[in-house]
C-alpha cells in the first residue's frame, strides 16, 4: 500500500499550506544553514558518519520527488536485517554508522 492510498489528503489548498507554514520553515531552513556554517567554522576535518548522512539527506530535499520524509528516514536507517550480538549501548546516534556494517 502506498502513501496516500487510504488518506483523505489535506483540506488546505497549496496556497494555504504555504501561507500557514512558510515562515516557520523558513526559520528552520536558516537553522540548517547556520548549523552547516557552524560546523565549517569549527575547523577542517573529516566529517563523521552523521554529517555524511546529513549532507545526503539535504540532497533529497531538493530532488523534486515525493515522499521526502520517508526517504530521509530510510537513508538514516540501519539497512541490515539480522539481530546484533549484543546491545552495547542504550541510546541511538540518529544516523547509521556504515563502519558497523550493514551498509
Amino acid at each position, binding site marked *: 500500500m502506498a502513501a496516500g492510498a487510504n488518506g*483523505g489528503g*489535506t483540506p488546505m489548498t497549496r496556497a494555504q499550506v504555504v501561507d500557514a507554514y512558510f515562515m516557520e520553515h523558513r526559520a528552520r531552513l536558516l537553522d540548517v544553514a547556520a548549523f552547516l556554517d557552524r560546523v565549517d567554522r569549527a575547523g577542517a576535518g573529516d566529517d563523521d558518519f552523521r554529517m555524511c548522512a546529513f549532507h545526503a539527506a539535504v540532497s533529497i530535499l531538493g530532488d523534486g520527488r515525493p515522499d521526502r520524509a520517508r526517504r530521509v*528516514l530510510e537513508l538514516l536507517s540501519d539497512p541490515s*536485517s539480522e539481530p546484533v*550480538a*549484543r*546491545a552495547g549501548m542504550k541510546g*541511538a546516534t540518529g544516523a547509521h554508522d556504515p563502519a558497523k556494517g550493514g551498509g
Partner: protein
Amino acid sequence: MYIDPHVHMVSRTTDDYVRMARAGCVAITEPAFWAGYDRSSPKGFFDYFRQLTESEPRRAAQYGIRHHAWLCINPKEAEDPVFAREVIGLIPGFLERENVLGIGEIGLNKNSRNELEILEAHLQLASDHGLLVLVHTPHLEDKLKGTRLIMDAIRRFPTLDPGRVLIDHVEEHTVGNVLDRGFWCGMTLYPDTKCTPQRAVDIIECWGSERIWMNSAGDWGHSDPVAVPKAQMEMRRRGHLESLVRRVTFENPERFLSQSGRFSAQPLRPTAPDVTR
C-alpha cells in the same frame, strides 16, 4: 476530550495532571518503562508494578482521569535475559489487577539477540493469557530494522491477532508496513526524536485514520504530556472535520483498548482542588 494512550505518569508531577485535565484528557494508559537507570533487583519491578496498579490510578483519579497500565520489562532493560525472565515471572501475579490492559511496552531497543529473546518471552505470556500487546519500536536509525524484526517475531505466534497488537512510535518509513500487516499503530508526538504534531497529521492525511492513534509518551525526558491536544489543534488549523479529530484522539484508542474488557473513558469526578485553582 481526548485519550492519551501512552504516557509515563509516574515520571510526571501533579501539575501535568492538571494541565492534561484542563486540556480535556479523560483517560490514559501507562506502559511499563525504563527508569533511566537499570534496576538492581527484579524486586524493584514488584514495587514498580504496585505503583502502576495501585498508587498511580488513585493519583490520576483525583484529576478526573482514568488510569490504566501495561506490564513488562522494557526492552531497554532486557539485555540480561536471566534478570528479565525473573521480572516476567512477576507479571502473572498482577494480571488480575483491574487497570491492567495487557503486556507492554515490549519490543526492541538496539535490535540485539537478547532483546529478541525477551520479546518472544513476553509474546508467549500475552499469548498464554490472551492479552493485548503494546509494542515499543526502536529509536532513530534502529527503528526501521527493529520494526521489521518485531513484526516477524509476532508472526511466529499465530495465536496473537494483529488486531490486538499496537505497534507504537511509527513514522513515515514504518507506518505503511505496520498497517499492511494488519496491526494497529501509534504515532508518538515527541520532541526531536519522533513525530511532531504536524508530521503526525501529515501521516493521517496520507494513510487515513483506520487503526491509528496519537500519544505523547510523556516521560522523565524531554517530552510533552499535552502533545495530543496540540495535535488536535493542528488538525483544526488545517480545517479537518471535528469527527476526524475525535476519531484519532478518542474513538480509535477507545476501540483498540476496549478489547481488553477493562478500559473505560467514562468521565470521573475530579476531587483535587488544584484543577480549578
